[in-house]
Each structure stands twice: as structure tokens, then as C-alpha cells.
């Protein structure tokens, strides 16, 4: 084969230009895509950290009933059992994020979304929930009920 030095350098040149072209196209694309993706990421908002809330007076809650209390932006389920004792759990189902309720006909905590059940200690006893509900601490201050993060 006869060498064509001139043609060789031409080919090198062309390859080099191709590389520049492809490289800069990618850089150009990235300079558009990166800001757009970053824009779509919701910024972290500093929420007021709630450590405890006042749920109400003891007399507001009947025996054998459950009520959802606002704990900052999260729902907490406050249960008063048949003996009049209070317990509180995160009301967010550990399965897929639905809000649970106390069912006095079952004597259990129930999630309507996929029929998940928890006992009155928050333990997942039947259905798809994989973990127990997060427990909260209930203290009584005179007649007031306070709920704290444990």
C-alpha cells in the first residue's frame, strides 16, 4: 500500500474536528439539561421542628376512641383505650403512606388503603405493612394531654 501522508493528516484533522463537534454538542446539551433538572428539584424548606403539641383536654376524648392530631405538618393518632389510657402513634401507615384510623369494632388500628392492621401497641399484625407505627409519648399535665416525639 502506498502511503499518502497528506491524506493521513487530513483524516486526523477530520477526526479531531468530529471530536470537537460531538464534545461541544454534549457540553451544550448538559448546560441546558443540568439547570432544568436542578430547577425541578424542590428546594429544601426549613420546617419549624415540632417537638410536642397539646392535644386537648382529657374530657375531650371518649374511652375506646381515636382522634387524629396535627403534629406540625404530620398526622398523629391519639387513642384512648377502653380503660381510659392514652397512646399515640404516627398516623402514617408504614406501607404506602395512607393515614390510619382507630377501629373500635376491631379494637385495632386500621388502614383503609390495603387493609393493613396494627395492634394497640402499634405493631403491624396483618396485611401489607412492613413495620410498626412510630410511637409518640403521651403525658398528662393536669387536665391537658401533651404529645411528644420519643
Amino acid at each position, binding site marked *: 500500500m502506498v502511503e499518502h501522508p497528506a491524506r493521513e493528516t487530513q483524516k486526523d484533522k477530520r477526526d479531531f474536528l468530529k471530536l470537537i463537534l460531538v464534545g461541544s454538542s454534549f457540553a451544550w446539551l448538559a448546560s441546558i439539561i443540568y439547570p432544568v433538572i436542578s430547577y425541578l428539584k424542590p428546594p429544601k424548606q426549613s420546617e419549624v421542628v415540632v417537638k410536642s403539641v397539646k392535644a386537648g383536654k382529657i374530657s375531650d376524648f371518649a374511652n375506646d376512641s381515636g382522634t387524629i392530631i396535627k403534629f406540625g405538618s404530620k398526622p398523629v393518632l391519639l387513642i384512648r383505650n377502653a380503660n381510659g389510657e392514652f397512646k399515640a402513634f404516627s398516623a402514617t401507615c408504614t406501607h404506602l403512606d395512607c393515614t390510619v384510623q382507630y377501629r373500635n369494632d376491631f379494637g385495632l388500628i386500621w388502614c383503609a388503603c390495603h387493609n393493613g392492621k396494627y395492634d394497640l401497641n402499634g405493631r403491624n399484625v396483618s396485611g*401489607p405493612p*412492613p413495620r410498626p407505627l412510630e410511637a409518640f409519648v403521651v403525658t398528662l399535665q393536669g387536665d391537658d394531654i401533651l404529645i411528644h416525639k420519643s
Partner: protein
Amino acid sequence: MNKFSSRVYQWMDERFHLSDAIDFMKKKYVPVHRHSVWYYFGGVSLFLFIIQVVTGILLLMYYKSGEDQAFESIHFIMSKVQFGWLIRSIHSWAANLFILAAMIHMFSVYFERAYRKPRELTWFTGMLMFFVGLTFGFSGYLLPWNELAYFATKVGTDIAGVIPIIGEPMLYFLRGGEDVTGATLSRFFGLHVAVLPAVFTVLLGVHLLFVQIQGMSTPLHMQHLEEHEIKKMPFFPNFVLRDLLLWLIVLNILAILAVYFPWELGRKADPFMPAPAGIKPEWYFLFMFQTLKYIPGHVLFIDGELFGILMFGLGGLLWTMVPIWDRKSAEGKRNKTVTYFGLLIVIFIITLTIVGWLV
């Protein structure tokens, strides 16, 4: 044609050569055989999409996005705006009929093997449109900000969060934050009325272009016939007129449903209320919802949900990729695997939908 319209036609034809397009459509034939009815469902889906665009734009004139406005604005549309209840009811009913028509269209294309070479790309664009259609339904469902929609969206987006590594960022991306809030509503609204219509329209254009260029496929069992033995009718005007008649029928069905079974609004979403009993997603997600109920917390060593998603993902992928793995049909041979896989999926979907409906 009367004088005026024929003069308009001539004026246009002189400049844009309309007759070329009409000649092209007249030369296009649609095969006539015992499965011909299925050819109409693509057209029905198209019609319903057009209805969605029109009624959707009308709803936009009064709809307000936002946690404390969305529900109220729809209540306003339904109670104060003249025919507002009708427009909303049509948009909701047509959304469901659209998904149904698109499903029938998709299954018929699958069982007829119409996706085989040379129509692979028509199938892929169709599948993409189908997924965009489901996203339309999912995002639109949240817009009234009622209780059912709120929990359906919580569950639906939480499922995305189960996927390892990308799940968490995806959940934030979808919800516009950690929880389903007004930020989620804004995102879904933008998606529903701007992003999805644009994407869908482009896909639809490409899909229809492919169909026009390639014409309708002939079923495998007719392939050995000679050209003159195949019964067929011209696309224009014969097939188009039949199409239009069916559109009219669909419009009537839609009107009956929308008037006699007006779409309900339900109760406003309240993040501090428990999920109501009997909560269910839209019927086209019901089979997946029902399956999730049966999967235990853990399968082997992985999370039950993750297992479910992997299975659905795999099934969907296999379904979408059928033109790639079904080589036999492209060669004109029968492929039983395709039929069995298709039947399995259809039976699975129908059974679980019925069970989900009943329990």
C-alpha cells in the same frame, strides 16, 4: 359540491395540490375480514382525545390550582357555571372511555400481530402514547383535590419511592417535596395541561404519519392470498365515513353517561383525616392495586412492594418489546408464545380488576 365550495377547493388545490393528498387516500385500502372491527378503535381513541383537548381547555377557563382553591373552583364549575357540570362530567367520562378504547386498540394490535415488521415503530409510539395516557389519567385525577384523589396520589407516588436508589429522588420530584401538598398539585397541573398534551400531540402526529405511509396491516392468515383475493375498501371515503359514524355513536354514549351518571366531586382532601373505607384507584390501576394487597411484606429477601413493581415492570417491558422478541410473526409464521403470553396478561388483568371491584 356546490359552486362556492368547489371554487374554494380549486383555489386551494391550485396552491397546495390538495388532490394529491386525496388521490393518495383513495389509493389506500383497508382490508376487509372478520377481524376488521378492531381497526376502528384507534380512531375512537383519537376522537376521545380530541374531546379531552376541547373540554380540558374549557375547564381551564375556571379551574384554579392550589390547595385552597382547586376543590372550590370545581365546586363552582359544577354549581354556578352554566353547563359546567356537563363539561366536567364529559371530561371525566371521556378520560375513562379514552383509556378503554386505547386498551382495546392495543390488545387488538397485539393479537393481530400488526406490530410485526415493518410496523415496529408504530407499535412503540403507540405504547408510549398509552403510558402518557395513563399519566394523563393519574395526574388529572388529583386536580379536584378530593379525598379519594389525595390518597390515591399518596399511594401512587409512594410506590415510586420503593425503587432502590432512584426511588427517593423520584418521590421528591413527583411530589414537589416530601409529602403530597399544594406543591404536588401544581406539578400535576402543569404536567396535565401543558407537558403531556405537547408530548402526546407529537407522538400522535408521528403515529398517524406512520399509519398513513404504511397503510393497515393484513392479518397473518390472509398473507398467502393473492392480491386480488383480499377483500378491501378504500380508506377515503368508505372507511372514513364509517369512522365518522362510529364517532357519532361514541359521542352519544358519552352524552348519555355524562348526563345520567354525572361525575361526583366527593369530599375535599384533608391531610388530617384518615383514609376513608372503600378507597380505590381508577379502574385501570385496580389490577395492580389489588395485586399489591396479596403480596406479603417480604418476598424471599426483598420488600414485597419492590417485588410487585419489579414484576409489573418486567411484564410491561416484555409487552412493549414484543416486536423485538417475536421474530416468527415477522417471517409470516405462527407464534403461539405470543398468544399465550397475551392471554395470560389479559386474564390476569381482567380477573384482578373484577376481584378488586367486588371486594
